[in-house]
């Protein structure tokens, strides 16, 4: 059975698998309405108040698994009826308040928002409270709780608000499609649209890769996924699905590192362009800093461009941990090269929709990139690769001072400093997800060992330098 971190992922997977299963057989149009009942049979609810609500929500999930509303480009979507209207009242005194004498909460509150009733129980005056949390910190009984919605908590760029009817709402002008809310919502009420039907269509219409070739461009974070089988078996699985071949996006990372170090030495300051969520965050939240963004395409874009130049009718599908890649492939600068983006979650569903048992397959090989291209998958890897690139290009006179931003909050802090000319660094590595791509919302699992897995995979690469890896491209 597939391994996921949460039951929400499992539910999403079941929907994707069912949609894919019907699509391969050309039966989706006839049977799409049956999917909710296939997943929730019988009369006993297992997730919600009744099976009818469960099925109504599943019908919405099916729509999004089929790409959702084509007129609406945004990838991250709220399923209104799935939103449980979680409490969002902020700091509140709970029943655990014992009405003590010390009143540390009152002392800690600088706004005078805390008062006491005749039982000496604390109360917070919401008109004065600024949600600083000091009262909660000092209470010896942990009696003050912060009732914040998990989605809002996850969204560090504050793109989620609450509508009048109490459901979560995403400000798509601000949203960077990182998927943090998708992963954190305990009810699975926020989800990423899927384009697996396009992928299935590309594979089918290629007629066994005779009409054109379909390529799977896989992100290096795959090394931390599908941990119950060998990576080589996943590669065989991708070919069994119908891809002509599998190529490492990490080779694109080598291409980017090779150019990025030169651009950096020339300009003297750069912010990275690998993470589409980080790039979009700069453009929306710090538009005046846009000029500093590296001119390189992302590794995915750079390699896909090379591949399309050599095989113009190719269909290229990026497979990675990232929901923001689904937005990146819609950009005018990337659309000509990458035909679709999907996540590891979706790949698992595709494998199982065709009953591909990875464990029974022989091991194929995957080796296109260098160690440095491969370690782009984890925080700090890009900065290490740029340092290596400077060395390989004999640009050692350039005093390189990278600022590694692990997660969007650190990105925000660095960009704020930069906007006030207070940043002591000449390169910002921005990764919206904590730990880098291995922390992406589209991963099957997130674990302590993922970083070590990426480094190990990096060391297994045939090519040891960036120059050697890109030399093969001619």
């Amino acid at each position, binding site marked *: 059975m597939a391994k996921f971190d949460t039951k929400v992922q499992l539910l999403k997977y079941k929907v994707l698998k069912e949609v894919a299963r019907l699509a391969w057989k050309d039966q989706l149009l006839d049977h799409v309405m049956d999917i909710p009942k296939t997943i929730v049979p019988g009369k006993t609810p297992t997730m919600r108040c009744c099976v009818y609500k469960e099925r109504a929500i599943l019908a919405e999930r099916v729509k999004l698994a089929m790409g959702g509303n084509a007129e609406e480009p945004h990838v991250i979507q709220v399923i209104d009826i799935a939103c449980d209207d979680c409490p969002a009242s902020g700091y509140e005194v709970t029943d655990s308040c014992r009405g003590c004498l010390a009143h540390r909460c009152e002392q800690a509150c600088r706004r005078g928002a805390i008062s006491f009733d005749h039982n000496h129980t604390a109360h917070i005056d919401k008109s004065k409270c600024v949600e600083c949390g000091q009262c909660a910190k000092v209470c010896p009984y942990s009696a003050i709780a912060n009732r914040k919605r998990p989605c809002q908590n996850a969204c560090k760029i504050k793109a989620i608000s609450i509508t009048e009817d109490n459901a979560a709402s995403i400000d798509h002008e601000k949203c960077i499609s990182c998927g943090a809310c998708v992963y954190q919502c305990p009810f699975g009420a926020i989800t990423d649209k899927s384009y697996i039907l396009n992928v299935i269509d590309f594979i089918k219409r290629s007629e066994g890769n005779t009409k054109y070739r379909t390529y799977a461009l896989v992100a290096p974070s795959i090394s931390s996924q599908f941990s119950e089988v060998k990576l080589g078996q996943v590669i065989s699985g991708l070919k069994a699905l119908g891809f*002509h*071949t599998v*190529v490492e996006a990490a080779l694109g990372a080598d291409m980017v590192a090779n150019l990025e170090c030169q651009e950096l030495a020339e300009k003297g300051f750069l912010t990275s362009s690998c993470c589409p969520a980080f790039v979009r965050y700069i453009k929306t939240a710090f538009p005046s800093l846009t000029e500093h963004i590296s001119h390189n395409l992302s590794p995915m874009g750079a390699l896909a461009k090379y591949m399309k130049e050599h095989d113009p009718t190719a269909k290229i599908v990026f497979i990675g941990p990232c929901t923001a890649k689904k937005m990146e492939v819609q950009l005018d600068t990337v659309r000509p090269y990458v035909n679709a983006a999907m996540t590891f979650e979706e790949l698992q569903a595709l494998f199982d929709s065709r009953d591909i048992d990875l464990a029974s397959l022989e091991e194929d*090989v995957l*080796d*296109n990139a260098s160690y440095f291209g491969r370690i782009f998958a984890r925080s700090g890897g890009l900065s290490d690769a740029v340092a290596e690139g400077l060395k390989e290009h004999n640009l050692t006179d350039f005093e390189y001072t990278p600022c590694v931003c692990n997660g969007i909050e650190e990105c925000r802090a660095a960009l704020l400093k930069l906007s006030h000319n207070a940043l002591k660094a000449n390169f910002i590595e921005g990764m919206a997800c904590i730990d880098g791509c291995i922390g992406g919302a589209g991963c099957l699992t997130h674990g302590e060992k993922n970083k070590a897995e990426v480094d190990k995979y990096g060391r297994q690469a045939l090519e040891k330098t960036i120059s050697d890896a890109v*030399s*093969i*491209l001619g």
Partner: protein
Amino acid sequence: MKVTVCIGSSCHLKGSRPVVEQLQALVAQNQLSDKVDLGGTFCLGHCQQGVCVTVDGELYSVSPETVTDFFNAHILNKA
């Protein structure tokens, strides 16, 4: 003349990079840059015979050790 070297994983492990590098050098040494369009592709579908190289669509099996002979026989004489 179009010469395409497979740079897919399997051929890469069998030595695509030295094959590409040597072909580039040989093309330059023989002043054939105008006549020979050297390119890479990911997988020609004959992984067992790697390193796979096609010359105007015809498939050859080359290795880093045989690349000079291959160049003399199939590129230099025909370009």
